[in-house]
């Protein structure tokens, strides 16, 4: 069914689910449920007697409080104050976020020697100051209470703490005999590799086994065959007019998403409305990935059809005759047309695939070669090193371990007992190894299977370097002294090899002596990166064609399942991080656990039915091969009929208190072909509804605004408010402007001109209506923002990819608490910034627009005039201020907020008050999550920790505004853009968010505010929002859909 004009958030919205419609009209879902929390109150309902008792208690408490002495507070200065630290002023250190192959050049904000926030490093030409959600959240992992605090040894029964000398002696003795294997994920650090080489020099019978949690092994081998180098080309999405991605989630998780997103957004922004000059992005996939949701066209193929889809394009472009049997007709037609357009414009496209099948990757390379893309849109001059692992190597190791030829295995940070595709085999083979040494900083399944643990530093405590792309060297420096008795992993290797330098910081000396960057070490340390790598798309050795076998066969089964890496927690590497667990998946918008994405079928009349008649939150029995799991279901628009999808990375059994037992593990369900994991399975079945998920935590249906209702008289779709009005007063068609709420505007690049006219007409009409006020603008109205600052924000929806880095950055900056799955399911998530995901266009294969939604700082704010205690009011600089100490928790403001961005502290999440009964225990822990002193070290001291019973919301990072203004004042100059940047703005990899002073006519914001694409959400209700969005423009090619 086609419906080009409609915009919807999900099935419940489209089919006007009565429960959803009811909830959407209320700010808070049924109150009884909120209060009936068994932890808080056993007995609800109070009477006059209770009231008197409480009053008595209150008076008594006040008397006692008055009688008590004020506690004596200490001020403890430094003994010798370090020069670079001024208490109260943040110090920034350039460093790098490195986790396996994930890389991000960062600045670490420290306060009094305590890292509290990650910022992007804009000197880095790869990321350009952007970050990912994972990089933002990495600071919380530093203060993870599950971290190992000292070395440990197990006797097979239980673990006991050991001294480093003890561990070293034991390991050295073990290494003397037998073969040693080091199992690691991709190592980006040249110095780590040098340390391993030094280790190998002493223990020659050592081999390094590198694999990645999500494998790119086939791709590396294909490049080895075609170009003689085992690396990944330097893709330049900003140079491509057409991007064809076969299931590669390059904006979310694939290889180097932060870098790619930045390049991609450069060609998606509309710089000139007369000549949009956008790239066209075609995604070939079955499950709607984050990248697919940004695509203009999606060609739906089943997971097992991916291979033949590539082969089909390969045949069309290269003119070969690879087998393509089984490919669906619709995809064939689309690929025909796509091939034609690709062929017509050589050297302007990028074709990529995430396939882990060598033949398919060879075909992709051949396609790119035939299209002349090498040297134009991709090259090897600065080839990416961000994936170096091959799961084939682990398969070989499993055989070795089984044969007993390996006596020592050092597991360096990786977790093969969980994330290796054939983990079961690995676990049983691993047990046969005599000495199993873990270099790890937090518990995981592999550490549990080891017998010696040498705990390592967190990246923020470590020295190191990284070479994510050839010639692009970045440094890692410690920003805090090690919190526990841990030791850098590389140093452990060097010590065991007897090759460690002496001194206070041996690994620092080692790193420095090993420095080979183009600039001096100190300069590189200051900047975080060594400059010098220039834009270089050279191919190196020319393309050598290789013989290409058949792609993987199309399965004939009725149902197929694909597995995808979630943007948040990866393949389980970040499961222990509550910020990432609570961050909703960009597309399904679910948090805390796995949700089976099932396709949605239109019943031809009114309702959209989930596959098997399943609804959101239904529990089903999922059978993959022999494994049976109970998983909740989410209805996913754009999911290909006959396919379902499930995310990796869940179901960890050893991931600390917040990651253990969340969701289900499907790593053992992957298909293994030719020693490599294929991220789908064709032997799958899904049962009918078996039950309901206890705490269904998809947030898309929470805080919905601009919803539609049905006019009871005519059956037409109208605004929900209007429906209420109609019911109460018998009005219909009341206030024309309210019927169509302006939440999202979309257009196709082709008819942008007409769509813009419509937009401007609508805006004009809204503004006209707003001018018809009973309260004519008086002197105050006219002059209030004519001087000083008037803060505002601009969000470019064409640049926003929905990655969620801003939401995590906001949590880190503003001490936004984690509430846990149960609370999320009760609409209690506390995020100040959410990214709403809307579908539009074709119901079967829709396009998506992401809308970051935060407090709009309305200059005519409806929340302000309903507050009985004036706790929320307006500043002279246009900020909607929230004063926690005045707030008495009536929640009137939240009810009256049209954008639904106000959050109420139902519980004392960050343990700001003294009553333990208010403190939630999200993970059943002894000390509430937020009360632990180690966890609390991540709190931003410039932002108040809110207690129970108050409302909070986005403050436009007022602490940063204050800081920026102060900087300008002390330097006696006018405030400029760079003085104040909000946390969401600095974290964004694509620069979609611009914050600034609307009164600064030369500023970046004023420039953006002049774009004709701009609109204000819900402009017609005259709240005078300070946040401006742009119309979402796509470059969809309707010809491909025919």
């Amino acid at each position: 069914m086609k419906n080009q004009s409609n915009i919807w958030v999900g099935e419940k919205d489209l089919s006007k689910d009565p429960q959803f419609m009811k909830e959407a009209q209320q700010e808070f879902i049924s109150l009884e449920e909120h209060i009936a929390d068994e932890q808080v109150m056993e007995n609800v309902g109070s009477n006059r007697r209770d009231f008197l008792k409480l009053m008595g208690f209150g008076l008594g408490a006040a008397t006692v409080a008055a009688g008590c002495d004020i506690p004596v507070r200490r001020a403890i200065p430094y003994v010798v104050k370090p020069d670079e630290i001024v208490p109260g002023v943040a110090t920034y250190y350039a460093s790098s976020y490195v986790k396996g192959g994930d890389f991000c050049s960062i600045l670490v904000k420290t306060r009094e020697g305590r890292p509290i926030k990650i910022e992007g490093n804009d000197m880095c030409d790869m990321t350009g100051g952007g970050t990912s959600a994972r990089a933002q959240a990495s600071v919380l992992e530093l203060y993870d209470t599950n971290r190992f605090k000292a070395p440990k040894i197990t006797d097979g029964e239980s673990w006991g703490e050991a001294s480093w000398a003890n561990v070293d002696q034991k390991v050295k003795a073990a290494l003397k005999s037998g073969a040693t294997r080091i199992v690691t994920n991709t190592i980006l650090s040249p110095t780590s590799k040098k340390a391993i080489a030094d280790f190998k020099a002493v223990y020659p019978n050592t081999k390094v086994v590198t694999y990645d949690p999500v494998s790119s092994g086939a791709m590396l081998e294909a490049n080895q065959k075609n170009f003689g180098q085992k690396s990944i080309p330097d893709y330049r999405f900003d140079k491509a007019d057409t991007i064809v991605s076969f299931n590669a989630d390059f904006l979310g998780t694939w290889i180097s998403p932060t870098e790619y997103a930045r390049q991609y957004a450069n060609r998606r922004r509309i710089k000139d409305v007369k000549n949009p000059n956008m790239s066209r992005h075609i995604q070939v996939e079955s499950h709607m990935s984050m990248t697919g949701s940004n695509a203009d066209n999606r060609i739906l193929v089943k997971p097992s059809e991916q291979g033949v889809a590539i082969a089909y394009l390969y045949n069309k472009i290269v003119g070969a005759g690879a087998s393509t049997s089984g490919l669906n007709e619709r995809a064939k037609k689309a690929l025909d047309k796509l091939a034609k357009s690709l062929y017509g414009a050589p050297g302007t496209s990028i074709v990529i695939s995430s396939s882990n099948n060598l033949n398919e990757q060879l075909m992709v390379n051949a396609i790119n070669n035939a299209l002349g893309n090498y040297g134009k849109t991709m090259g090897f001059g600065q080839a990416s090193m961000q994936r170096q692992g091959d799961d084939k190597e682990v398969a070989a190791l499993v055989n070795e371990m089984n044969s007993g030829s390996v006596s020592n295995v050092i597991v360096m940070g990786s977790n093969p007992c969980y994330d290796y595709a054939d983990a079961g085999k690995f676990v049983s083979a691993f047990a046969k190894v005599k000495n199993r040494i873990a270099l790890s900083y937090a518990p995981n399944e592999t550490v549990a299977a080891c017998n010696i643990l040498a705990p390592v530093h967190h990246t923020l405590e470590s020295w190191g370097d990284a070479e994510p792309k050839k010639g692009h060297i970045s440094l890692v420096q410690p920003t805090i002294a090690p919190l526990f008795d841990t030791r850098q992993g590389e140093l452990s290797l060097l010590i065991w090899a007897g090759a460690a330098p002496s001194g206070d910081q041996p690994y620092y000396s080692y790193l420095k002596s090993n420095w080979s960057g183009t600039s001096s070490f100190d300069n590189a340390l200051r900047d975080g990166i060594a400059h010098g790598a220039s834009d270089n798309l050279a191919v190196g050795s020319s393309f050598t064609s290789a013989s290409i076998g058949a792609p993987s066969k199309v399965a004939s089964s009725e149902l197929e399942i694909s597995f995808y890496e979630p943007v948040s927690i990866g393949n389980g590497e970040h499961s222990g991080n509550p910020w990432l667990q609570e961050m909703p998946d960009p597309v399904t918008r679910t948090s805390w656990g796995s949700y089976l994405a099932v396709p949605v079928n239109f019943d031809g009349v009114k309702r959209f039915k989930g596959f098997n008649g399943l609804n959101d939150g239904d529990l089903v029995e999922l059978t993959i091969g022999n494994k049976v799991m109970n998983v909740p279901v989410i209805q996913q628009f754009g999911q290909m009929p006959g396919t379902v999808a499930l995310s990796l990375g869940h179901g960890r059994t050893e991931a600390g208190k917040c990651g253990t037992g969340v969701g289900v593990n499907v790593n053992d369900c992957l298909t293994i072909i030719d020693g490599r994991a294929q991220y789908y399975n064709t032997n799958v079945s899904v049962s009918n509804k078996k039950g309901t998920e206890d705490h269904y935590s998809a947030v898309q249906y929470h805080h919905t605004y601009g919803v539609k209702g049905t006019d009871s008289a005519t059956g037409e779709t109208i605004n929900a408010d209007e429906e209420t009005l109609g019911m109460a007063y018998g009005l219909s068609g009341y206030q024309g402007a309210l019927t169509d709420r302006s939440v999202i505007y979309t257009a196709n690049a082709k008819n942008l001109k007409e769509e813009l006219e419509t937009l401007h007409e609508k805006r004009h009409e809204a503004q006209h209506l707003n001018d018809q006020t009973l309260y004519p603008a008086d002197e105050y109205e006219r002059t209030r923002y004519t001087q000083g600052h008037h803060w505002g924000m601009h969000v470019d929806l064409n640049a926003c990819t929905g990655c969620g880095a801003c939401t995590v950055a906001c949590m880190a900056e503003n001490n936004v608490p984690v509430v846990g799955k149960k609370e999320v399911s009760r609409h209690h998530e506390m995020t100040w910034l959410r990214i709403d995901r809307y579908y539009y266009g074709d119901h079967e294969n829709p396009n998506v627009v992401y809308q970051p939604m935060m407090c709009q700082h309305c200059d005519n704010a409806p929340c302000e005039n309903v507050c009985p205690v004036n706790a929320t009011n307006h500043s002279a600089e246009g900020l909607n201020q929230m004063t926690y100490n005045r707030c008495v928790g009536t929640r009137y403001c939240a009810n009256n907020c049209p954008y639904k961005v106000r959050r109420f502290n139902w519980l004392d999440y960050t343990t700001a008050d003294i009553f333990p009964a208010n403190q939630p225990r999200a993970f059943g822990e002894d000390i509430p999550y937020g009360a632990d002193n180690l966890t609390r070290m991540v709190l931003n001291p410039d932002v108040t920790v809110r207690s129970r019973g108050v409302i909070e919301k986005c403050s436009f990072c007022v602490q940063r505004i204050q800081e920026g203004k102060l900087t300008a004042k002390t330097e006696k100059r006018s405030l400029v853009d760079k003085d104040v940047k909000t946390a969401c703005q600095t974290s964004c990899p694509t620069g979609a968010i611009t914050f600034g002073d609307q009164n600064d006519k030369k500023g970046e914001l004023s420039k953006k505010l002049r774009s004709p694409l701009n609109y204000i959400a819900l402009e017609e209700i005259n709240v005078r929002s300070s946040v401006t969005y742009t119309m979402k423009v796509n470059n969809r090619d309707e010809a491909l859909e025919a």
Partner: protein
Amino acid sequence: MIYNHLNRKALLIFLTALLSFSLSAEVSPDAGKKLFKNNCARCHAKNMKSDATGPALGGVQERWDNEADLYAWIRNSQGLIATGNARANALFKEWNGSVMNSFEALSDDDIGSILSYVQGTYLGTYPAPVAGAPLPGASDVAETSNAWMYWLLLGLLGIIAFVLFRITGGMGQIAAEKTGEAYVPKTLLETLTSKGVVSLLLFALIVFAGYTTVNNAVGLGRQQGYAPDQPIKFSHATHAGINKIDCKYCHDGARRSKHAVIPAANTCMNCHAAINYGSEYGTGEITKIYASVGYDPSEKKYIDGDKSEEELEAIYTKWIESEYLREKGIEELDKEGKDLVSTQWEEIVSSLTNEQKKTVQGPIEWTRIHNLPDHVYFNHAQHVTVGQIQCQDCHGAVEEMEVAQQMSPLSMGWCINCHRETEVQFSTNEYYKSYVKYHDDIASGKKDKVTVSDIGGLECQKCHY
């Protein structure tokens, strides 16, 4: 050309007007009040009768024989001292060498205004107690000077109440006579225990109790006047008063950070590596700094490596002992000396250690005097560097304090009040350029100053977020 000419003419007229306006300004206590508030009130008490950082100003003109000298003193006291003026030098000495700020910008008229305001306030003739006269600013001081009116009112009401009481009594009597009943006048006891009186008293009690409760509750957690004992008997009077060390030398955060910062022990060592004379404070107090940072004063070098508490004790008792011997000029330690050494060492250990911190080495745990609640954002740099506020404005005359204490209430009302009154550095700081309207208003004379509250200094999120 014509426009140009016209413009120039207009400008000329404007300038002339402005000049004549400013010339027409003359000596008035009203102008003096404003000037006093902005320039003098930081150091001189407003009642003109008590000493503060500077002396009480009441009767200042009588104390100076030569009016020209007084004017010179106010403009630049150090200049006058340098000329050898006897009164100036005596005054300077009397006030322990506290330097008065210079106010070169004040005109003779300005100073005259200030003096007339001072005189007026001192003698109680300003503001003029003329009822109904619309004196600018009169409402501020009305509370004290108009009190007699309230007493008069109370008296009148009392008389009316008495008269009414008599009338009701009389009417009761008449009524009783009319009905023929015997009139029994109420006794005093009956009157006092009557329903009306009891309920009136009860009502008054509730109002009074409520008022007191609220007032006390508002004051909960305030620590004005708090002057706890500190681990080191540090005297601000010695350091900032006698030796005139700039506040911001030690509290170096004040100019660039939120926190003024209690100096690290190594800051103390900048001077005290050399200054340690005397066996009372010299050894008793300064040795605490040495013990904290691990400095051996006898050897004049920092102690290397870890030392046991006994070894440390040996090092420092040796130092205390040698100082004592040197001071007394004796060779052998006498009984008094032995006592001194042991009591001083005990005192050092007890000041530097507690349940958590077992060793004398390591940071000194001072008792924090100025505590703001956690939900208050306060930034020293904003006030000191940007606002050019003197430390004494909030902290009082610290340079006179032997034991540091909290002078100001640090209440929100106190903050707000200052934000209402204090002018921002509007013309000298480029940052405020964006406040175009205010600059225009000042130029056109609509506004004579811009206070913190004018630019949003009373808004919640300036301090709470």
